[in-house]
Structures are given as structure tokens and as C-alpha cells.
């Protein structure tokens, strides 16, 4: 039976090592005082006590990747004016397991999927990595500073986007496979049957859910106030303190805006894609100097709009926010997006 499983805590490393045989395994590790996803290797410390500062998004959607490389070739020695350009793409992404991300992180990937895969111009780079990656999420027992997953339709043990969900049941971890990929992973490693832990896990999960704060009504159909959304005064009030950096967007599991730039040396170069942030002025700046979103108020409004209005409008009401709370937790000015959305949903709040 591979749908559920149980591992005593001390066996977790064996499990990871077994996984490492067929795949590159990324797991959270402590780097100084922060938690980052690192390639797991034997004997490396695993750190599951809190969510990573930067989720696993960079594994599947790297901050910088080469879209294509080009070579300038002078094939005809008689004609130095003739330069042929050879384009190349490379794909060498190995099978990968992301271990120990949180359910919100996994949910973020589903929000990416709609953009990058469910379209007539699917992104082959993303798709390849997504297809080759198995996600083993770790259910949260309690919220962390700033979390609000339940308000955006998720939860501390939400299964969206995960292939396997893992729950700490005290003396060990309870695993449930959620997809075929997940089943395959559980099958590949010898594991105790987990059926007997199912109930305990369920209880832990629902206890956790109760602890999550609800900054605004969970009901996704509750519309934002368009009037308030359009009001510059409102945005000035809530985001004057924003310093227009990219910490919120870069750490966000659902932000995916990117930039494409060319870099070249004498006779070759590459076209790279890098994360970009809608909070930066230059993001929309045009050559003429004109900027359609010239102020941080407009840019912040677009960010909130994108997550809570535009994306849902395009994708069937799905909110492009997983409530992980990173943008709140790590904001230099402690700007709280959940508070802002709360106002927009209920303008009568003071």
C-alpha cells in the first residue's frame, strides 16, 4: 500500500538518502540564521522547524536561467561581413524532489502552472522542470508570523500542488501520496504502512487550521471594493511606507514577473530570463521616459490587483496569493498585504 506511509523521525535521513539515488533532492537547511532549500547530500542537516526564507520556487522557476544561447559565426572566410547566428537551447534538468516545503509553497506552484503551462504558448523550461519535480510538502502545525493561508483558500495542510503531504505525528512522520508521482515516490522507498496514523494526522491538521488568523473573510467571491481600489488616497494611506524594493515579490511563491535580457561577449552570448519585480520603477519604464505605473502607489495597486482581481478574473476566481506571509514577515517597512486586502474587502473597517 503506497498511498500512505509512516516513518519514525530517526529514519527521515535514510528516506532522503534513498530518494537521492534517483533524483536531486532539495531540502530546507540552515544557512547562518536563515533557512534555504539546498541540495540534500549525505549527512547534511535538515531543518524543518520553520518555513524557508525563500521557498522552493527558485528550483522550478530559477531566478536566472538561460533561455537560449547564440554564437556569431563567420563561416565564409572570404566574406567577413556575413555573420551567421546559431541558436541553441539546453535542457538538462534532472529528476528532482522538493522535500519539506510548506503547503503554501506547493500551492504557489499551481498558480504558476496556470500561467506557464495552461496556455497556448506553454513555457517549455518551466514545464520540463515542473514535470520532473515531485513535491513533498510538510504540513504546518501552527502558523508563523504573518501567515494567512486559510483566508486565501489554502490551509496549513492544504494538498494543492503537492504530490505527497507529510505530517508530524509526534514520534514520526505520516505521509500521504496525493498524485501518481507521489505514489511512485512512496513506493520507491521502504516505509511502514501509515493507515493507523491517518486519524491522528487529521486531528493535528484541523487543530492547526484553527490557529490561523483570518485578516479578511475567507469567501473568495467577496469582491474587493472597486471604489477603494481606484482611490489614490487609499493607496497613499496604506503604502506610503513601502520602499519599493523587491523583497516581497522575490520571496513570494506566486509572483512570477520576469525580465529577459541579452548578454554577449565578442562572439557569443545568451538570452537570460531573470526574476523581476513589479514594485520596481524600471519594470514598466519605457524608453521615452514614460511610465504607465510611475509611482509606488500605482505599482502596489497593480501588485494587489494582480493577485486579488486580475488573476482571479482570468483564472476562474483563483486568488494568486497563497498566504505564506513572507511578504509581510520580511517587508522592511512591515507593510501588511492582508490588512490592505481586508480594507478592500470591507471598506467600513477603520
Amino acid at each position, binding site marked *: 500500500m503506497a498511498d500512505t506511509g509512516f516513518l519514525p523521525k530517526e529514519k527521515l535521513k535514510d528516506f532522503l538518502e534513498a530518494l537521492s539515488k534517483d533524483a536531486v533532492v532539495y531540502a530546507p537547511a540552515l544557512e547562518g540564521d536563515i533557512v534555504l532549500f539546498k541540495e540534500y547530500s549525505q549527512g547534511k542537516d535538515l531543518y524543518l522547524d520553520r518555513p524557508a526564507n525563500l521557498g522552493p520556487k527558485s528550483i522550478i522557476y530559477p531566478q536566472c536561467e538561460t533561455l537560449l544561447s547564440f554564437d*556569431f559565426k*563567420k563561416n565564409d572566410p572570404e566574406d*567577413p*561581413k556575413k*555573420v551567421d547566428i546559431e541558436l541553441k537551447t539546453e535542457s538538462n534538468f534532472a529528476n528532482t524532489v522538493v522535500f519539506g516545503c510548506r503547503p503554501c509553497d506547493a500551492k504557489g506552484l499551481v498558480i504558476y502552472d496556470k500561467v506557464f503551462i495552461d496556455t497556448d504558448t506553454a513555457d517549455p523550461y518551466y514545464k520540463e522542470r515542473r514535470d520532473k519535480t515531485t513535491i513533498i510538502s510538510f504540513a504546518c502545525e501552527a502558523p508563523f508570523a504573518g501567515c494567512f493561508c486559510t483566508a486565501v483558500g489554502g490551509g496549513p495542510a492544504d494538498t494543492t500542488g503537492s504530490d505527497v503531504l507529510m505530517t508530524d505525528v509526534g514520534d514520526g512522520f505520516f505521509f500521504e501520496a496525493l498524485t501518481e508521482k507521489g505514489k511512485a515516490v512512496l513506493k520507491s522507498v521502504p516505509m511502514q504502512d501509515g493507515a493507523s496514523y491517518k486519524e491522528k494526522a487529521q486531528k493535528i491538521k484541523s487543530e492547526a487550521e484553527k490557529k490561523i488568523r483570518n485578516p479578511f473573510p475567507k469567501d473568495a467571491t467577496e469582491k474587493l471594493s472597486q471604489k477603494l481600489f481606484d482611490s489614490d488616497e487609499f493607496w497613499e494611506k496604506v503604502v506610503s511606507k513601502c520602499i519599493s524594493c523587491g523583497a516581497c515579490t522575490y520571496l513570494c511563491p506566486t509572483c512570477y514577473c520576469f525580465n529577459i535580457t541579452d548578454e554577449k*561577449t*565578442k*562572439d557569443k552570448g545568451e538570452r537570460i530570463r531573470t526574476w523581476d519585480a513589479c514594485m520596481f520603477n524600471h519594470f514598466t519604464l519605457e524608453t521615452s*521616459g514614460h511610465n504607465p505605473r510611475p509611482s509606488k502607489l500605482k505599482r502596489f495597486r497593480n501588485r494587489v490587483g494582480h493577485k486579488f482581481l486580475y488573476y482571479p478574473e482570468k483564472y476562474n476566481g483563483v486568488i494568486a496569493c497563497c498566504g505564506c506571509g513572507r511578504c509581510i514577515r520580511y517587508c522592511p517597512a512591515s507593510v501588511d498585504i492582508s490588512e490592505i486586502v481586508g480594507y478592500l474587502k470591507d471598506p467600513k473597517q477603520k
Partner: protein
Amino acid sequence: MRVGVFICHCGSNIAGTVDVARVAAEARKIPGVAFATNYMYTCSEPGQDEIKAAIKRENLDRIVVAACSPRMHENTFRKTIQKAGLNKYFLEMANIREHIAWIGNDKELNTEKAIDAVSMAIAKVMQNKPLHATSFKINKRVLVIGGGVAGMQAALDCADGGLDVVLVEKSPAVGGIMARLDKTFPTIDCSICILGPKMVDVGQHEKIKLFAYSEIEEIKGYIGNYQIKIRKKATYVDWEKCTGCGLCMEKCPSKNSYDYFNFGVAPTKAINIPFPQAIPKKAKIDPNYCRQFLKGKCGVCAKICPTGAINYEMKDEIVTEEVGAIVVATGYGLLDQNILTEYGGTRYPDVISGIQYERLLNASGPTSGHIERPSDHTEPKTIVFVSCAGSRDKSIGVPYCSGFCCMYIAKQAILTKDHIPDSQSYVFYMDIRSPGKGYDEFTRRAQEEYGAQYIRGRVSKIYPKGKKMIVRGADTLLGTQVEIEADLVVLATAAIAAEGAAEMAEKLHISYDTFGFYVESHPKLRPVETNTSGVFLAGACQGPKDIPSSVGQGSAAAAKVLSLFSRDMLESDPAIAQVNTNACVGCLKCLKTCPFQAIVEDTLRSGKKVAKVIETVCAGCGVCTSTCPCGAIQLQHFTDNQLLSEVSAICQM
């Protein structure tokens, strides 16, 4: 983009140690290079024609010439490509001669280095932008600094050429050193007699505005448009009223004032007219000696002055003049005799300097032309001249030859014999430097006709013995020690840079050498130009010079000014800083560091505060560009991207 690359052999200068064909072949491989070749003498006419032909034939839009230093031929090739229809800033040079071929023997390494140099030039030229000069009006007035013979000559030539001249002289009268000389070599004609008329011309010329007893306070601006602040020092005599009658000088009770004109040979009055032929002939009070200033009471001159010109309250006054070019003729100074301790410094009154002796010889000098010993006013019979008193002496920082001493010593020996027929002159010399028309003959006459005894050797010591001065030196020709009992010793003290020469150079933004003499643009071909366009040199400020050379340079500088002013408009160098107002954040750090005050604050229509470059003031140093944190102010032709492209052409791991 189609870059054409021309690798010059420079005969065997380059081709001898660089494989030029390989450099061309490697250049040809670089994307963007449409044509690359090597050529025997690229700077020759056929070489330039080849570039022009290739531009047309191959449709080239940018050119790289790998040859000698751009300091040598950049302008040549800029003109070449301009003639072929390209903007001249689409040229880059790779210096593969001075920086590669001539300094390394290993052909393989030299070739690799040359390939890199060419790659860098190609990378840069691809970033180049066409630049266009803008024209601006020239203010056709000229400032001449220094009223010595060189400055006067320049001023007169310019004025006669129809230019308005502003002549600034720091002492109370024009004439400079020449006005103090008795006779001139090799003709023995009276110095003031030939200079006097020139001085009068300067004083009377309607095109010359003379500021005597004035100094340059500040120079702002650039070629064609300078603003000059002149400090008119307080003379305490209203020169509008002063008639130069000399009554004040006669009655002044302060008789022990230092006489600058006579180099302290004898004292003068606290209020004085420096010399009878002075232009302007105006009196001036020396407050360091005047009783009115020192003790607060006297007022004799004020009482006696028939025109009421005396004004003890007078203050320095700053006036501003606008000119389009500057001739610097600030002359030279003389080594402080005190440094020459082996000659007693200035401790012995009968050891004097050549210029002091000149004043003793002069009929209008303090002794009315009677040679007498300063100590006891007796007529000296034995006179020793010591040449190279400081000159050609590394130990005191004057390794160079002062140039004119040999000649004036010969002259003074001759004059001495004329004045005192029973006198005997001795001349200690190291080498006799007399390379001028009639010069060598002149030194021979001093020896042969006037009996001056020339002793080749250095004087090691001068000391008093009774009333005499003992001059001890070597006679290197005879290989013996000589001691001469002299009545008077005359030292040919070294010519050095004028006092304040460095400060003046800093005001002018021109360079000066280790000794403080101003540096010309090219020692052979641009002897009166400086590296700062619009500023020219005349006379001994560039290095010790005799009168004919100084006069020649005065005229030469004037000719340069006249030719500069033959146009109404000048073209500014477009390689200057430019502000991208989209990127500029108006922090104005550039304004703080600009050495030329070429940057001002500007407000755009949108209300945005930005920096603005005054095109004609910007000299193109680029300090602003490396100050600007956001890269908004870019020195054209040396932009960040241009320099970065050169860096990345050679630094790619």
C-alpha cells in the same frame, strides 16, 4: 555595424616585432568587423586614401586604426574618415607601436597583445556615437599677463593687429627685467633707449588697456570667453590725479625704503616713481616704510602733492575684464643669493648679483653709472665674475643652464673696462655658452680686446680678507687652485621660475615643469601654445631666454592669437559631459566636483531638478561621470559603456 580595421606596419617599426597580418586576420574574425587589412604606412597619403577607398567600397561605418599613439595621429585619421563621410568620432586607435612594438621583443607576445589592443578598440568603436561640435562666438580681446619685453611685444603686435588688449603688470611700471639692464649684448646698445619707445607705445596705444601694479585674481571660462578678475593693488595715490611730477618723492622723509626696481642696491623713498622712464609714470606709497602707515602721522606727501592725489585710505580694487585668449609672459626670477652659502650668501656687501651690477653700471641707476663698492663706495679695480652661480647645480635644484649669463658677463666685463680703464676683470666659467649671432665673437672680444681673464673652473669659496674679497677656485685647464683678491664679486645667479608661477599656472589650468617653468604644447612644433587651448606663452616664463628670443616669442604668441581671432566663431570639442535627464536624480554631486564650474542646476518643465552642463565651459575631464552614482552624466567619447566595453574585451574569464 561595419567596422574597418587597419593595421599599420609603420615600416618595420611595428611589423618588426608584431605579426601584423595575424592581427588583421584575428580582427577579421570578430563579428561586426567587415574589413581588416594591414598596410605599410597607414598615415601616408596612399595609406589614408586606402582607408577612404575601403570606407566607400566596403560600406564601413566605423574605423579602427592600429598604429602609433593616438597622441600622434588621432587627428590625422579623424580627418581622413571625415573626408570619407564618417563622423570623426567613429575612429578609434590602437596604440601598437609605442605601447607594444617598441617595448617588447617577443613577437608572439607582442602579437597577442596587439590583438587584444585591437579587440579593445573594436569593442569601443562599436559603442561610439557620432558627436557634433557646436559653434560659439569669440570675444576678440586678449589678455597679456606680464609687461616685460615679451609681454609688451605680444601686446603691441596684437594691438597693431587691431585687437583690444588688456595688459596686466604686477609691478608699478612696465619694462620688466630689460628696463633694468644697462646695455644689451652683443651690440652694447642702451637697453632703456631701445625699450623706452616700446614702453611709451604700450602706455599710449589706444587699443591697450594697461593695469600696472595689478595682479590676476581669478580666471574663469574657456577659449573665446574668459572672465578675468584683476586685483588693482592699492597705491595710495590716485593715478588719475598724479602727474608724475616727483615732488612727493623729493620731500618724503622715509629714505630707507627697499628699492625693488634697483634690487636693493640703494634705498629709495617710501613714496616713489620707480625710475625716470617709468610707464606709467606715477607715484606709489610703500606702506611697509611709509611713516603715515607705520606711525599714523606724517602726511608730507599729501600736503605737498599739487593735485591732491594722495589717498591713504585706498583699498585694493577688483575689476573684471572679458577676453577670448590669454598670453602668459610672466617672465622669470633670480635665485636667492642667500642659498649660495659658499659665496657668503648676502653677508658680504661686495658680493653682488649680476642684475645688481647692472644697476651700478646704469647711468640712471642709484650711482648714476659710477661703479662703486657697496661697502665703501670706492671704485673697484679687481672684479671677479662668477658664472653658473646656482645654475647647472643639481644639489640646489637647478640642473639646467640659465642660458644668458655667459653673454651678460662678457658684456659686463667689457663695460667695466669702459667705465674703469685700469680695472681687471676675471671670469670663472664652466663652459662658455654663446650660440647666437655674433655671440661667440662677443665673448672673444671681452677677452681679447678688453683683457678679461677667463678661468675655466668653479669657485669653491668666497671670503673677506681685510677690505678685499678672496675668491678661491679651480683652474681646471691648468689644473691648479687659484685665489684672486677682488674688490668686487659679481655672481651670475641662476634664472628660476618667477615668484608665484605655480599658482598662476593653476589659475590658468596649464602645466609647469619641475622647476616651475610653463610647459609648451610641443617642444618643437608648438612652442608658444599650451595644452589649454586659448592660452599662449611668451618669454622666459617658459624657460630662461635672452631678449631676442623673448621678443620673438611675444610676436609668435601674438600671431597665434591673431590667427585664432581671424574667425568669428569657434567650434567646441563635443567630447564633453552630457546629462541624461531621465536618469538624473538631481543630487548635484557632479556640480560639487566639476573643476570648471561647468555644471549648473536646472529645472525641467516637469519640475524635476537636474544637472545641466554648460557646453562651452566643460573641458571634458570626466570627473563628473565618475562622481555621478546613477550614470546620468556621461562624458561623451569616454562613457561608462565605452570604457566598460574595453574592460570586457580583455577581462572575460
